[in-house]
């Protein structure tokens, strides 16, 4: 079985966000970066799947030069192969362009049974790329997955639990499939020192748009359908009121105020 894990490098959730307002894009090179927290669960799920069923894991990341860091982390966690999809032409891609480029990269990897992604990335928060990848590749689209119950590679089948509104949906699907996983599906491990040392020495191959057969006009700022035209910070919340008094007093005051909102029935 061959598993592809898609990993995105995102700005550290604690870091200061820097924007290129003219282009409506992030200045990714200038910001502290981490592996998208949701992708850590996808990576761990690939490692667990490999331990259970035997598989080959290929990690892919699309992003600028610096994105090799997240692939090196994946290598330290003993994935078998990594590919860095990188090209100045890709800068400014929206989900439509990103899913197109990643689908091309996955096609180039070839003979893939399972693509694992995180539910969404913490920078753009779109949660769209995994589904778009499934459609573009013609794979089963399995999102919001909280558990992979069973994989039957020989019969090209997978069974998962999807955490949807109101409960858990158990779904069986044909392989290949794109599975996007939720936080909490597993507990991501940390790389050990030997893994980190080994990974540091690996030459990470770069796939540019030519290499994966991507038409330049369909990616990057030129190919993106969605463009950012405005950037603001949310209006500050106003009029906070501190309630003071002893426990009895503040409690009855708060109850009075909340009942006054006519929300509680």
């Amino acid at each position, binding site marked *: 079985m061959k598993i592809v894990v898609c990993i995105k490098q995102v700005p550290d959730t604690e870091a200061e966000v820097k924007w290129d307002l003219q282009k409506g894009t992030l200045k990714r090179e200038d910001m502290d970066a981490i592996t998208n927290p949701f992708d850590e669960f996808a990576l761990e799920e690939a490692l667990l799947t490999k331990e259970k069923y035997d598989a080959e894991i290929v990690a892919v990341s699309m992003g600028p030069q610096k994105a090799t860091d997240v692939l090196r982390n994946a290598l330290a966690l003993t994935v078998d192969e990594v590919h860095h999809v990188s090209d100045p032409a890709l800068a400014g891609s929206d989900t439509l362009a990103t899913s197109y480029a990643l689908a091309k990269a996955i096609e180039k990897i070839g003979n893939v049974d399972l693509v694992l992604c995180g539910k969404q990335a913490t920078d753009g928060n779109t949660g769209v790329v995994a589904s778009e990848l499934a459609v573009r590749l013609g794979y089963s689209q399995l999102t919001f997955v909280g558990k992979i119950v069973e994989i039957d590679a020989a019969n090209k089948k997978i069974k998962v639990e999807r955490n949807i509104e109101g409960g858990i949906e158990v779904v069986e699907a*044909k392989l290949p499939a794109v599975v996007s996983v939720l936080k909490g599906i597993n507990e991501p491990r940390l790389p050990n020192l030997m893994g980190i040392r080994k990974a540091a020495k690996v030459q990470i191959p770069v796939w540019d748009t030519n290499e994966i057969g991507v038409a330049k006009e369909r990616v990057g700022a030129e190919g993106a359908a969605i463009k950012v035209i405005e950037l603001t910070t949310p209006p500050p919340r106003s009029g906070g009121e501190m309630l003071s008094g002893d426990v009895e007093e503040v409690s009855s005051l708060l109850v009075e105020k909340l009942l006054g909102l006519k929300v509680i029935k």
Partner: protein
Amino acid sequence: MADYKDVWVYVEHKEGVFTPMSYELFGIGQKLAADLGANLCALVIAENTDELAKEAGYYGASKVYTVDGAPFKTFRPEAYAKAATTVMDRYKPDVVLYRATTQGADLSSACAATLETGIASDAIGLEIDASKTVKVTRAAFGGNFLVGVVNTKSKPQIATVRPKVFAMAERDTSKQAEVAKEAVEVAEGDLRTTVLQFIKSEVTVNLVEADIIVSGGRGMGKPEGFKVLQELANTLGGALGASRAAVDSGWIPQEHQVGQTGKTVKPKIYIACGISGAIQHLAGMRTSDYIVAINKDAEAPIFKIASYGIVGDYNQVVPKLIEEFKKRLSR
């Protein structure tokens, strides 16, 4: 692209079962349609579409496109996307809105990729600009930045809309929509997924749809703390939330988590107990109508955004609140 017209809203349901929330986008859909000088239309895909289509008329759709058939009994993205994109290809909507739920996200993404068009997800603002384009406001980096996005390149303009952001349309049973029954062939053998089972959650109130949320953080100090919060939530008919710190401490399951790596919520009242107010948590709840903060630490950042703040120990305050609410609400 001039051929593209009208605003469509996808009507979400679960095996034919719908709630008023299935029609919550008809209010904003109506407004966008009016600003564009276009019609509000509904898209219904189900095993039996009659009831759903009639209801769409009550909520203000002038035309309803329906796709009926056994393969559409349960939502499956590939079946529904085939139906939706086929009908969209026939009638070329200018704008298509879906709810930002698991079903809405799955279907909208599949439609966008199939039709090679853009998608703006989890909109919290929608307006028509001077060039008759939909400007979508959405939150990036959790909720700490708002970005305005447009798609001037391809049609239809697709967006998913965060639940509870826009007001419901009036339901008027004297209204009737024209129904266009559309035939779309989907062969069971071509489909890739089978839904085997649905296991209903024990959590009775859906966090994302709740009007009232009582939430606990690191300051709870122990798993038992959530019992008293649950009791307050039950008293108010609300849902139980938590911060990442409480979830990571193993005090409460992850499905309750609110924040950047949890759920984004917009209740009318959010009661934060023992939550300091890290930006990752605020990202998930800062658009709540009213925020109540109860925290021992008077310096906690949560107080800066709270509508009402109480400096105190939740162990003492919350039981008093329960007692007082029960008395006042005769429960």
